[in-house]
């Protein structure tokens, strides 16, 4: 279906929208391994990548998928994989090697309940893994957390440009709800394949150029330090340019609510209801988790009586919020772990009780 601007609109699941977004963003090489709740992504890629001359490979494990990405990225493309929590754990080693080799890629994590085999319910318990992870060593992924099917589509497409610009792994952090719920999506047109022509990429023949080595082994500490500093410089640049967040709610709030992804979706409804109860609350929704919107949260921390962090975990992002607030006001937390969703009703009662407690102080 076409909307008034001529763009195609389609009812899609988050997984499908994410996969189509990647193709629109120029993805042509996808390496996957099935795990619920993200199976529709590799399935979509297997079905549709050949339409644009792309390649889907089903790897024997998430470990192998990550190293297939490493090889593909070394050959100049921006490769993609997707998985869910246990698979992302297995990818950590490869992400570390990709950081060491200074190679970009796009990884989607549709988080499920854990630890261990856990379940296939929605969770945000991989925040630490997504923001501090990327295996051993001093590197991190750039991490973005969409909160709607449309945003999944858009960020999946954007991720390829971001990965290429900063030469870093980019992670899209979703969850089992975002992955499987269906919403109308304004589809981006399918873009050209990303160029393989990068001054460090192997393959394509020497043709008058020097041979190239893609490597993460640097036995001289000072040389290894330089690799780290180069990576840090690109990371710092991303930190300066890529902070993304959205705010809704009261202009003069007494309470700032911080939540991302599915939880932010629920919180948005709840702070609307809270307003009807006379509570002046504002939602700040980080979209970029790395880089994190520390500065924006700090500004509000000067003005509100309380910051409330809501997560589908027992408290992971709350640590970043505390780093942002730096004691300027109290930071409270509410969360549930292991898969149960927090309803708008639950959220409202948490907001009301927090507001009541603070008012009594």
């Amino acid at each position, binding site marked *: 279906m076409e909307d008034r601007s001529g763009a195609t609109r389609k009812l899609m699941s988050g997984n499908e929208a994410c996969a189509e977004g990647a193709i629109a963003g120029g993805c042509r090489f996808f*390496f996957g391994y099935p795990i619920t709740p993200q199976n529709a992504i590799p399935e979509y890629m297997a079905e549709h990548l050949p339409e644009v001359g792309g390649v889907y490979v089903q790897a024997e494990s998430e*470990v192998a998928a990550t190293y*297939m990405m490493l*090889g593909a990225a070394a050959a100049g493309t921006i*490769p993609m994989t997707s998985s869910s929590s246990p698979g992302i754990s297995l990818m950590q080693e490869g992400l570390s090697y990709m950081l060491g080799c200074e190679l970009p890629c796009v990884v989607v994590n549709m988080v499920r309940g854990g630890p261990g085999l856990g379940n296939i319910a929605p969770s945000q318990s991989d925040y630490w893994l997504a923001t501090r992870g990327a295996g051993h060593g001093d590197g991190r992924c750039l991490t973005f957390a969409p909160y709607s099917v449309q945003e999944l589509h858009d960020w999946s497409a954007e991720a390829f440009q971001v990965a290429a610009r900063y030469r870093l792994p980019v992670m899209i952090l979703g969850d089992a709800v975002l992955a499987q719920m269906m919403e109308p999506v304004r589809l981006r047109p399918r873009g050209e394949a990303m160029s393989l022509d990068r001054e460090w990429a192997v393959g*394509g023949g*020497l043709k008058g150029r020097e041979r*190239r080595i893609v*490597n993460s082994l640097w036995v001289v500490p000072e040389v290894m330090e330089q690799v780290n500093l180069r990576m840090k410089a690109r990371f710092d640049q991303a930190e300066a340019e890529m902070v993304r967040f959205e705010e809704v709610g009261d202009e003069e709030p007494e309470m700032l609510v911080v939540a991302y992804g599915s939880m932010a979706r629920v919180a948005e409804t709840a702070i609307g209801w809270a307003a009807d109860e006379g509570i002046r609350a504002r939602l700040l929704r980080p979209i970029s988790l790395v880089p994190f919107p520390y500065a924006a949260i700090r500004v509000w921390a000067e003005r509100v009586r309380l910051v409330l962090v809501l997560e589908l975990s027992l408290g992971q992002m709350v640590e970043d919020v505390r780093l942002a607030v730096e004691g300027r006001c109290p930071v409270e937390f509410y969360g549930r772990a292991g898969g149960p969703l927090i309803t708008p009703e639950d959220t409202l009662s948490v907001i009301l009780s927090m507001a009541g407690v603070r008012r009594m102080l």
Partner: protein
Amino acid sequence: MLDDLDLTEYEPVYTRPESFTDTIMRYCPGCTHGLAHRLVAEVLDELGVRERTVCIASVGCSVYTYEYFNCDCVQAAHGRAPAVATGVKRVRPDSVVFTYQGDGDLASIGLAEVVHAAARAENITVIFVNNAVFGMTQGQMAPTTLPGQVTTTTPRGRSREEGGYTLRVCELLSQVEGVAYLARRVLTSPGRVRAAKNALRLAFEAQLEGAGFSLVELLSACPTWWHMTWREAFDWIDQTMTRYFPPGEFVNWRGCGQAKE
């Protein structure tokens, strides 16, 4: 004295292959990693594919492979070279892609990657150097360690109870459809070296013809961790190792399994 020699009077009969860089190798005296490298380099020269070759180095004593081969190179994590090779080859199908892996790398931590690359019939070539120990980490048991062999982690000799049984990679892979060429060779005499080089050439030809996955296993000496002189090590390969790992051609896409050594 050598400096005074007028080399123009001589015709070179043995030179450094173009596919080799002018670098001093880091291998122990008597180690056959260097010889294995040289044979690969000669084959790349003779096939005229150096400029479009991508070498995937692995983790083990041959970790610096990327310094020795004069072509594009990618360094892989321990065991993952066939997955990295898959990624490179899928993006650049015109490249000639080979991995160079030890037996710890390929048969222990990386067994899944090599078996599945073979099953997918990836058009890549694997050079598999089997010295029956983990060389780089100082002589521990490998999956390929022989029954009774003493290593630093099988101090009483490998047994069913301590370390279990020996893995034979060629025999295992010979069951896998998708393998176009598969051979095991030794490097202990000039004739055997020639046979090894021939196998390497066939392996790369399989890739160039798009026939599928190819692998050459080379039984290799590790005098250092076998605690032997090179002579003893070569004898041990000929008399003991080959009994467990018989040389031969297991798969040949041009006609299966002829030309046993």
